[in-house]
């Protein structure tokens, strides 16, 4: 039965050159169809003597299986080829930009504001917010800064055409410190609060804006000392700038509502501002008269307060060198921030 091998090799060769499924099925019919070569051979078995029948039958079936497996392999190859062709054809330029809506941004000053809140929240400080048009009492007198005191000239004040119940003109708060008084009068010690917000002073040049943001901090309890103020603020500065490479210096100063009072300067040990002392905050132990104005007994309670400019912190954090950029609403500036 040498022709069986020939038939198989013919079939394999024929399948291999076929490029599409219908042609393959036609070729299959030529060997395995009703009138196919192998089918005819099987039909012819009956004519053989019985002793040859078994052997021949087995050989023909073996050949049939070989053709069927070649057929199957060819079918799979054709399918895989077709899929590959489709995939190739469907391929995208994955480097084209994603489609649809973009992202806006939060103002850098607000990013700092939020981070300051988060840092102080992590050691248990509450956050408070209050009026920006204030009374003379909350902005000055309650903070131990009476009328005509030379310290008032430290903060040039905007006034509005409305008066308080004392007949004094209402003003735009010159600092966030009135919130110390407002908050402390509503809460019992231990008082731990920060009050970020807008503040206003009659001042406008390259380094001063008539409106700016401050964050006030206040911690009143039974034994909160100046050393604690140094500890908290140092920690805050290092967390805010995420660097231990920043020095903090407390320099004696004067504010009517704290005593002892300190200006806080910071200096970076690397970067463009390396080694320069930069003023970032005013601070001190809350003045006993102010503690009394909180409605508390200064013999029992003491603590510290500080006020720091959020714009200043933001400029140092992101390397911004012009304060005015914050208030221009220039999209090219704003788009650089989260």
């Amino acid at each position, binding site marked *: 039965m040498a022709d069986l091998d020939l038939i198989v090799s013919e079939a394999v060769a024929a399948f291999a050159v076929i490029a599409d499924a219908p042609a393959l099925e036609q070729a299959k019919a030529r060997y395995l169809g009703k009138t196919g070569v192998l089918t005819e051979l099987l039909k012819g078995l009956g004519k053989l003597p019985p002793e040859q029948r078994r052997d021949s039958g087995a050989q023909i079936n073996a050949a049939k299986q070989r053709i069927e497996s070649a057929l199957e392999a060819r079918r799979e190859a054709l399918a895989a080829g077709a899929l590959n062709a489709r995939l190739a054809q469907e391929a995208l330029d994955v480097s084209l930009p994603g489609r649809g809506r973009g992202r806006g941004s939060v103002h850098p000053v607000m990013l700092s504001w939020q981070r300051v809140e988060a840092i102080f929240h992590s050691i248990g400080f509450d956050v408070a917010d209050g009026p920006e048009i204030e*009374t003379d009492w909350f902005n000055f007198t309650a903070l131990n800064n009476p009328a005509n005191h030379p310290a008032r000239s430290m903060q040039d004040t905007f006034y509005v055409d409305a008066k308080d119940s004392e007949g004094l003109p209402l003003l735009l708060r010159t600092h966030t410190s009135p919130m110390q008084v407002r908050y402390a009068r509503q809460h019992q010690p231990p008082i731990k609060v920060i009050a970020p917000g807008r503040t206003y002073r009659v001042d406008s040049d390259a380094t001063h804006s008539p409106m700016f943001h401050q964050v006030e901090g206040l911690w009143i309890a039974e034994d909160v000392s100046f050393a604690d103020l140094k500890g908290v603020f140092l920690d805050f500065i290092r967390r805010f700038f995420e660097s231990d490479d920043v020095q903090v210096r407390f320099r004696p100063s004067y504010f009517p509502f704290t005593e002892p009072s300190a200006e806080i300067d910071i200096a970076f040990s690397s970067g463009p501002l390396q080694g320069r002392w930069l003023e970032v905050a005013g601070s001190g132990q809350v003045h006993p008269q102010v503690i009394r104005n909180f409605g508390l007994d200064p013999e029992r309670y003491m603590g510290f307060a500080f006020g720091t400019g959020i714009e200043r912190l933001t400029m140092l954090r992101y390397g911004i060198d012009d304060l005015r950029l914050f208030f221009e609403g220039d999209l090219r500036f704003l788009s650089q921030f989260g």
Partner: protein
Amino acid sequence: MQFSEHWLRSLCNPPIDTEELSHRLTMAGLEVEECQPVAPAFNGVVVAEVLSVERHPNADRLALCQVDDGSGHVRSIVCGAPNVAVGIKVACARIGAQLPGETADKAFVIKLAKMRGVESQGMLCSARELGLSSDHEGLLLLNETLAVGTELREALSLDDNRFVIKLTPNRADCLSVLGVAREVAALTGTPLRTPDVTPVVATSDDKFSTRISDRKACPRFTSRVIRGVNAAAATPDWMRQRLERAGQRCISALVDVTNYVMLELGRPLHVYDLRKLRGVIDVRFGKTGEQLKLLNEQIVTVDESVLCIADDSGPIGLAGIMGGDSTKADLSTADILLESAFFLPEIIAGRAKRFGFSSDASHRFERGVDFDNNLAGIERATRLILDICGGEPGPVTDVVHDLPARSAVTMRVVRARRVIGVAISSDEMIGIFDRLGMPARRSGSGEAECLSIDPPSWRFDLRIEEDLIEEIARVWGFERIPAKPPIAPAAMLPASELVRSLHDLRHTMAASEFREVINFSFVEARWESDFSREGSVLQLLNPIASQMSVMRSTLAGGLIANLRFNLNRKMSRVRVFEIGRVFWRDTAQSEEALAVKGIAQPVRIAALAFGPVAEEQWGLANRSVDFYDLKNDLEHLLAPNCPKQWGGGLRFDAFTSEHAHPALHPGRSARVILDGCDIGWIGELHPRHQAGYELPQAPVLFELDTKPLLRLSLAKHAEVSRFPAVMRDFAVVVPEQLAVQSMLDAMRAIGIDCLKSVSLFDLYRGKGVPDGCKSLAFRVIMQENQRTMTDQDADAVMASLLRVLSESFGASLRS
């Protein structure tokens, strides 16, 4: 406060260098703002005398001078200065001298040179060539008493530094070189050398009568007559130098002396021309309507709140502020009255500012002047006047009434340690008070140990225990106080799930592609009239500019300005938002813990969108942003506030024509209603403003109160039905002007339990729909909780919906 280091060191000279001195002052609270050499580096410049001046043989404008520079050789020097003359003393740079160059590190070296063929053996210098001033008019002329050959730096004491210190208002005692020296002495333990104030012996009996009508306001008035002074005498160089280095302009010997004593001792003085005084001097409050011409030529009108120095002619000076023109001493004055007074700080405070100026005297009197150095000051000034101008001094008249009480202040040692947070020993504290010139008395011991001091007459800031604690902390050294990590009970600080913060709103807006801006709270008046729907606007009494004169009651104006700013910078798509307070008069607002009576100042959020709805990009057809795009952004922002079920609490109601919003297109704007409350508005800018603000298209804006947005309700789980939902769509034709919301409301109002939602999914106008009508397609979702809905159930629901729409709105089903 500005002064030269030499002057300071003449009173207290600690063994530390300039840099350390500057650091110590700063760290004691006298912030050194500036510390600059009075002259740049140069060398090889000596005092020389011009012996002869001849015309340069080859140049008309140059002279050939023979100069004695003290070297023993006469130098031949070419000079082009117009003021060169025989006999003058000048600064001569010898060959090899290094003068200040164009840059700090590049000196200008003087070489032997030929000028127009003639050798010049050095250079005669102008003040500018030495970097001493910008004066280039001619040679720097030196005092003729200076010895030839002396190094110029030594002769003019140029190795000196100009200190500028920034003083806090409580430290008026340091508004003098003596005050600063006192501080340096305390900080370094170096002894203080006070200036010589030995009384000058009177050589006449001349006095001038003074009467003090207001003894409380003026507790001390000291004066002296000096006759026969030469007011035109020259102020000596050493005094000029110190005054100039203290930033004080030299005027005339008499004025210079008073300024000198003020700067040295902190003692303001005044000189009157005795012959111009009428009758007696009286210290009294002004009378309404009285006028006075001051030394600065300003004419002021005084009243009963202003303390004046007067004579029989009326007010002749503002006490503690400035003298008057009518009695001023000038170069022809021969007889003078010197005044050395003390006025109470609270009497002087704020008065000069009211007249729109400030003076050295008012700056000091407002803050407190030593009331124990009136005599020292007048004696010091007398001595100097006699030395410079000559004259016959009379006796001192010292009228003293009730000087400020100086009661002892006591500090508990334990309290000081508690406040500072460091266990400083009481011995160390006593040492600090001693060095500050206020010896302490010790009483009690242990927990009860106290230190008491009597505040010196020059300190006006020591009244209570904390004032002393501050002195201890300051002088002991803030730098030495440790930074203690705080210790506190570890209480949890909860953040409620029912509240969101303004920061959450910010990040939501940023996710919707808006950029946050910060605009000023004071705006142009026009913005308010154009954009605000609030009542009474607040004006600033002292705006810095007219376009920042009213408090904003809406954020809209700022956002439109932001739009204009960016359009001018070629941006075509602008999406901005702001969160901030707005302000207006509101009589309903009462005094509250966090509110000021009569003023509404809520925090608002506002957004503006302009230009293409999306950033220009491939594969997306673009169009201009409109009302509905911004409405979607608003709904996104408010999603956490609205119940998730159909018919949540957010609605948009068109403005009625009589309450139209002034900023907005009346047909394209709405009030935003959350849970029945008006929380703000949304709309397209009115075409009138689009034109008025020169905008190429109308932006869309919204503004909302933030307070209702920050309150959230707790999510509440409702069981999800396990039975299949039925979905049906239908379309109806209705009149164009019918609002969809009213149809949705009507369908919801039927109250069918299984009706889960009805939503609009298509809006069609055109072929098949009559003119003046629109076709609205709704999708209905129905579901029962306990059983599967049948077709008949669904048909019944649909029928009742259609009936309501047909009966209420004349809607007809579109087939």
